[in-house]
Structure formats: C-alpha cells, structure tokens
C-alpha cells in the first residue's frame, strides 16, 4: 500500500492554546482512516492544516504520489452543509469542479452520471435549498468527488442526519472505498468509526493518543470486555467486584473487567436474577478504548 498523505509533528497554536500539539500520521491509499476525538480535540484544526486553510506553526504536511497541486487533490466535505442555497444543483456541482481546476464536457458528463446514480437527476435544476437534508448531503458528496481527488476528507459527515440518511452516507462511504478511493473521516462517533474505518487516529487535547489499524488496536487491548444482553434489572452488574467499569443501556451491558477476573463468576452472579440472551467475551469497543485512554470523566461529556 502506498501513502497518500503524511502528516509529521504538526503544531498549531491559537494564542496560548495549543490546538494541535505535534500530531503525526499517514493515510494509506484505498483505505478509510478515522480521525477520532471529542469536539475540540483538534480534529478540525488538523483538517484545516491539511486543506491548506491554516499554516502549521511547526511540522510538515506532505502529499505523495502525484505532482498535482495539493489543493486540487483534496475533496473536502465540511461539517454540516457547505453549499450555496440559491444555486441550482447541477450548476453548483460544476462550480465546485471549476474551483478545483476541472471544467469542460468531461466534468459535465461526470456530474450527470453521479446525479443519476444518486437519484438526483430529476432535481438537477432545483435550487439547493429545495432539497432535503439527505439530498443536500449527496450533492455535497458529489461535489467532493467530481474532480477525482486523491483524498476525500469528510468532517463529521453524519452530524445532524437522521438514521436513514446516516445509513445512506455509510453505504456511500463503503462504495467509495470499494472503488479504491482514499478517505479521511473525522468523527466523534466511535461506533461509526468502528464500522467504517480501516485505520484510526485517536486525538485528545491536540495529541495522538492511539493510532494504527483498527483490529490491531482492539486486539492490543485484549479480550477483557464482556457484552451481555438480558431481560430484567441489570443495575447490580455495575457493583460486581470483577467489574472495573460498566456501560448499561437498555438491557445491554458492556463491562470492562478488572485484570485477571473470571467471566464465569459474573455469569454465576446473574443466575436467578437475569434472563441472559447473549453473553460474549470480546475485544473492547472503540468507545471503551477511548475511555481507557482519555479517562472516564471525559466520556461523560461525550455521551
């Protein structure tokens, strides 16, 4: 696999605040890389340095494998919407391609192909503001693809979307990946990243706290997490001596076990109190790992 983008020790300060404090990572061609962290962790600042909006105070951002102008290699989808409401859909798409240096009949055909594929053909002459939020998101996404970018950067692509549209975006990302495109996905939704990403970069307070291939990251934390689905009142699970930390939501518990604890003891404790539907020892979820890394008190404010 070849590296598309290499970010090395970048620093960005705003006044006294070190928003990004020596972040390094690489993005491999044909993968989805998840840039994870809380709001304010430094994700957007990092992205803005990559897109050339900010200059880093230190460190380097290197584009590899092409002589194209770095700005034209990026397809950037900002958080929420980044479209002119008054413009017509197709016209807007052509404008987005043009500011990336692409125009002419190739782009027009490509835009038309995408519009048909995303079932927006009927809406090509509608104003952006007349479209539903999900459709606007689709238009925005086409806009990031038309100029054939080397790297698609998506900042919180699912924020503010309903479950149906979230699913839509998720499927789109999968399709794009299957086409061999490279995606940098910034999000604070751990579950989403877990579903989508090949590699993750976990950022906290401007620093990378964890990075690597997602499976490797999870395996490195061992199988010390117990997933239990049940019927009954499971509040007592949190109090068990083997449990270090618990997340209990709607008859499903995710328990982090203390070192060396035997899950069998927990199963025994549930007998007669809960009706067990699932009992699984697994690697921790990204959310668990995140808590492990940045502290539980931080997690409270995320949820």
């Amino acid at each position, binding site marked *: 696999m070849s590296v598309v983008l290499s970010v090395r020790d970048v620093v960005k300060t705003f006044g006294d605040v070190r928003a990004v404090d020596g972040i390094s990572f690489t993005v491999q061609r044909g993968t989805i890389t998840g840039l994870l962290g809380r709001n304010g962790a430094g994700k957007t600042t990092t992205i*803005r340095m990559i897109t050339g909006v*900010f200059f880093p105070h230190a460190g380097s951002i290197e584009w590899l494998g092409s002589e194209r102008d770095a700005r034209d290699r990026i397809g950037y989808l*900002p958080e929420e919407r980044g479209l*002119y409401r008054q413009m017509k859909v197709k016209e807007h798409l052509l404008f987005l391609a*043009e500011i990336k240096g692409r125009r002419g009949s190739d782009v027009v055909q490509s835009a038309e192909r995408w519009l048909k594929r995303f079932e927006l053909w009927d809406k090509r002459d509608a104003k952006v503001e007349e479209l539903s939020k999900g459709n606007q998101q689709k238009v925005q996404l086409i806009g990031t693809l038309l100029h054939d970018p080397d790297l698609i950067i998506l900042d919180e692509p699912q924020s503010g979307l309903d479950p149906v549209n979230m699913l839509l975006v998720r499927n789109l990302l999968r399709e794009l990946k299957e086409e061999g495109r490279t995606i940098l996905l910034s999000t604070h939704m751990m579950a989403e990243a877990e579903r989508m990403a090949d590699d993750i970069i976990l950022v906290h307070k401007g620093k990378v706290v964890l990075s690597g291939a997602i499976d490797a990251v999870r395996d490195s934390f061992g199988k010390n997490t117990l997933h239990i689905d049940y019927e009954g009142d499971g509040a007592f699970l949190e109090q068990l001596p083997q449990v270090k930390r618990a997340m209990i939501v709607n008859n499903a518990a995710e328990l982090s076990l203390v070192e060396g604890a035997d899950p069998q003891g927990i199963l025994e404790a549930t007998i007669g109190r809960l009706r067990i539907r699932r009992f699984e020892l697994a690697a921790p979820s990204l959310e668990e790992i995140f808590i492990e890394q940045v502290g539980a008190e931080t997690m409270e404010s995320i949820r």
Partner: protein
Amino acid sequence: MNKMFAVIKREYLQAVRKKMFIFMTIFFPVLMAALFIVPGLMVAKGLGGKKVAVIDGTGKLQSAFAHHLEPAVPDPKKALSGGNRGQLPQSIDVEYRDAHDQANLDAAKKPYLDRLYVDRKSTIGLDAVLVIPANAFEGSDARLTFYGRSSTDPFTQERLASVTNRAIQRQRLTGRGIDSSDVDTLTREVPLDSVQLSRSGQQKKGGEANLIIGFIFAALLIIPSFIYGLETMRGIVQEKSERIVEVLISSMSPRELLTGKILGVAAVGLTQVAVWLTLIAAVGTFFATTAMMAGFDISQFLRPMVFVYFALFFILGYLTFVCIYAIAGAACNTDKEAQQLVAPIQMVMMLPWFIMFAIITNPDSTLSVALSMMPVYGPITMFVRTLVSEPPVWHVLVSIAVSLATICVFFYATAKIFRVGILSYGKRPTIPELWRWMKVA
C-alpha cells in the same frame, strides 16, 4: 486564475439573476425620478382650495379680498421652474370680516379662531385666520398675524401677506393722489431668472432643476453602492455561516477568492450602470423636448462627459464601498452583527449625501473641493461637481488618483482581514482587533 474566473462568473450570474437586480436596474431610476419630481408636482397641485378668514381692523381692504383668489400662475410646472414659490398655483377662499368698528380685535377674531378646530370640510371650517390690525396703514410697528392649525403653510402665508401688502401700498399711494391706473405700472415687479455661466461660456438656466437633477444622479451613484455593498457583506457572512468558505479556501487562496468576488460584484455594477445610462440617454432625449417646454433644460445635463464621469465615479465609489462591506462581512458571523458593525461606518460614508444640498448649490466652495478629493467621499462629490459645475481638470484627476489609491489600500486591508476573519467563528471583533488581524495576517 481559472479559479478566480469561476468565482467572478458565479458572483455575477447569481447577482444578475436576482429579482433585486432587475428591480434596481429597471425601476430604480424611475423610482428616483418619481421620488424627487412627484412631490414637487403634488405640492403644486395639492395647494388648491384653502379657506381663510380675514379680520380686517382697518376696514379698508375689502376690495382686495372681495373675491376668490385665483392661482397667480395657473401652470404648476411653470411656477416650480420659475423658482418663485409665492406664485404657486393656489386658490384661496376668503371670508372677509370688516372689524374697524370693533374696539377689541381679540373679541372679533375669537369666533373665527374657534372655527379652525371645526372639520375643514364642513361649511364653517377654516384653514387659517389672518388678522390685520387697525393701525396697519400708519403704525410703524403694526404686524399682520396668521393663525393656522399648522404653522408649516408658508405658501398661504406668503400669498396672503403679499396680497395684503400690495393692497395697503396701493391705498397708501392712491391716498397721496396717484391715479389708481398708474399704481399698477409703478408697483410692477420685475421677475428674476438665474443663469449660470460655465467656463466654456455655455449658459445654463438651472434653478431648482439643477438641484433635482443633482439629487437624482447622486442617488443613482450612491444608493447601488450601499445596496450591493450590503449584498456582498451578506454573501460573505452566508459563506461563513454555511461553511461554504471552507470549501472555497481549500480550493484557492483567500486573495484569489476576494479578488474574484469583488470583480464579480464590480461587473454587476457596471452592467447596471450601462443599462441605466442607455435608459437615461434614450428616455432623456425623448423627454428633453417636453421638459424644455416646461422650463427644464435637461439637455444641458446630458453632455457626453456626464456619462463618462458617471460611469467612472460610479465604479470608483462602488469598489470603495464594496471593500468596506467585505471587511464587515469577513469579520462577523451573522448579518445582524455585521449590520451593527457597519451602521456607524455607513453614517460616516453617507456624509456627502447629507450635505448634498450644500455641494450642489456651492460646487466650487472649499468644502466641496476638499470633499471631492478625499478618500471615500471623493467619487460622489466630484461627480456632482462635474454635473452642476465645471471643476478644473486637475481637480478631477486628483480625485480619481485618490480614489484609486484608496481602493488599493482598502483592497489590501480587506484581503488581510479576510484571511483571518473569514475563518473565525468567535464573537464579533472590535475595530482594534480588526487592526491587529490586519497586521498578523
């Protein structure tokens, strides 16, 4: 370069397709003309039919007020162009009351004054009461008194004062044994025409037409700058609030973006001016003949140089204003904040408009000359000067040079503030903060 062109194209097409542009281009000149000319005509037309009671303490002026006072000048246009408001076409119904046998005029006028409060449409309603004291002929301190519901009726006042005075003078003269037919000849007034001489020796008969045309052109020059300036500001605020700017800035440099935007907006302004000048030229030539018959010599304003100057000073003023609004847009996150930031600046920018009267009436005064060579104020003041007077060529050149320099400086500052401000989503910066942004960027 191509990216900048994409921005210019987008800005231009989006703007000219808006209803606002069509409205401004087609209806605005008509509206402006209507705004200045119609009130004049309405004043003229609406003056008719005043009901006035005259309480004559001398008892000798009945003949002067015996009949309905017909308009002195029947044609309103002629009256306006003559510049003599006293001659406006106004008819007055006089109710004459001989009060020379009344010891107390106050008692005599009382019932009439009460009638001022009655609805003027009823038969006993009155618009005004004129009281002529008993000593009007002899007393050196005698004064006529005019009672009205509103004190702002100078036309009726002037008219009554002049009628009364003429009648008194007449009787004084006939009292000295002068034949009444001679009195008319002796007291005949000579009307005044104002003629303006330009350096080229051209004669202009302006009067109030000068003022009206000056205001119309000044409005055409300045108002679009404010409107499109505001549009530009809103556009930038919208780009910020909807994060479009991040997409733009990830594709081109802020300077390319700003240059594209301003050139796009400038193209919109030029299109508008081109349409206006064509309209004015077409309509102007058509109406010039009609207008001239009414006493307006419009053709004197339709010199080719006026068109050149208009286009030139329009674009200079326009770009200056657009830069100022672009700064406000880049600095703020909401329309409301931006409006608050520009409101005081706008007042300062409007200065020439507020003193337009002084500039038009004294186009070569120190004030006018100074303003015409100042940044921001230069374009509009200089244009008005070229319209109503003929300033020396070097004045015009200095003004153009100052404006160009101003635009360059503003553009430079805007580009710097734009660089910082366009991505800041915090609270609205103060002016010192803006200054700091300019230095750090």
